[in-house]
């Protein structure tokens, strides 16, 4: 493939991404709006919490996949980031499990 053809492909690819970015930005704004409305709805707490977690996860992955180019980049980068995130989530789960009680004896901290 000639150099000019490669340049043309790169520009075409960037223009395609440009439209993806605009669509994604609109979706992110809309999801944030939905989250704010959700917290004031008289619905079961567990349902709202689940929906909030799912919406946050959607926003999170949308940004890392498209804005951070993980969907277009080398697969290794994706796994590096997932490893860090997995360790963070494991720490979170471990801490919550360790202290999964309603009350702790605070005399140990005084």
């Amino acid at each position: 493939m000639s150099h000019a053809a490669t340049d043309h492909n790169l520009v075409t690819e960037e223009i395609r991404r440009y439209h993806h970015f605009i669509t994604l930005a609109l979706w992110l704004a809309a999801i944030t709006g939905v989250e704010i409305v959700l917290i004031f709805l008289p619905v079961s707490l567990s349902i709202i919490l689940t929906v909030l977690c799912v919406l946050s996860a959607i926003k999170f992955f949308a940004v890392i996949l498209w804005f951070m180019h993980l969907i277009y980049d080398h697969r290794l980068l994706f796994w590096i980031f997932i490893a860090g995130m997995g360790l963070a989530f494991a720490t979170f789960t471990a801490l919550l499990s360790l202290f999964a009680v309603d009350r702790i004896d605070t005399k140990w901290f005084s």
Partner: protein
Amino acid sequence: MSQVAESSHAPTSTGIDHKKLIMWLFLASDCMFFGTLISTHLLYRKLYPTGFTDAEGHQRFIQNLFNIELTSFSTFILLMSSFLMALAVSAMHKGQIKSFRRNVLGVIFFGLIFLGCQVYEFTHFLHQGLTIQNSVFGSTFYVLTGTHGTHVAIGILWLILLYFYSFTGKLVGHMGALDVEVAGLYWHFVDIVWIIIFTAVYLVEYLGPTGFWGTGLPLTK
């Protein structure tokens, strides 16, 4: 006339530019850093669900301290700054330096608005009597959001330097686009961390008639 950034670069054993690889490794480690900060905040929020006592000795409730409108606005601003950053990176890949400068100025402006909102929020909380020392909530909240704010400030400084560097004529070609892309990765990371903080720290406080932790006064909103 715009000049498309060349796609060729020095070969590496992984096939990935070293700068980009190192940035992703840093972001993975930063993920663990923020993971522990968020975990600590939520854990202590669970263990010490009551509010705090202000300087006059009055018991205050966290749920009525937050201003959800302000936080939603700053969240929206940060999301839009991420969008502009993506456009700035895209412009650099197409070799459109003027478009890059325009977008990066927008990112800097939005970042400064976000920081302004955070400074306002901290000042408001201090006036309400919440300090880093008088409650567990104050300690974990200020450390978590303060660390995030510091990341935003570093990002703004980095982008300002890139903006002025672009006038030297050295921010060109593949390496120039890569430099901008690496800065963009950092900025997007700051954004995704805020997405989690917004839900885990702010929104959950509004769930249920007396807040998620069940210890607040009934919300008036």
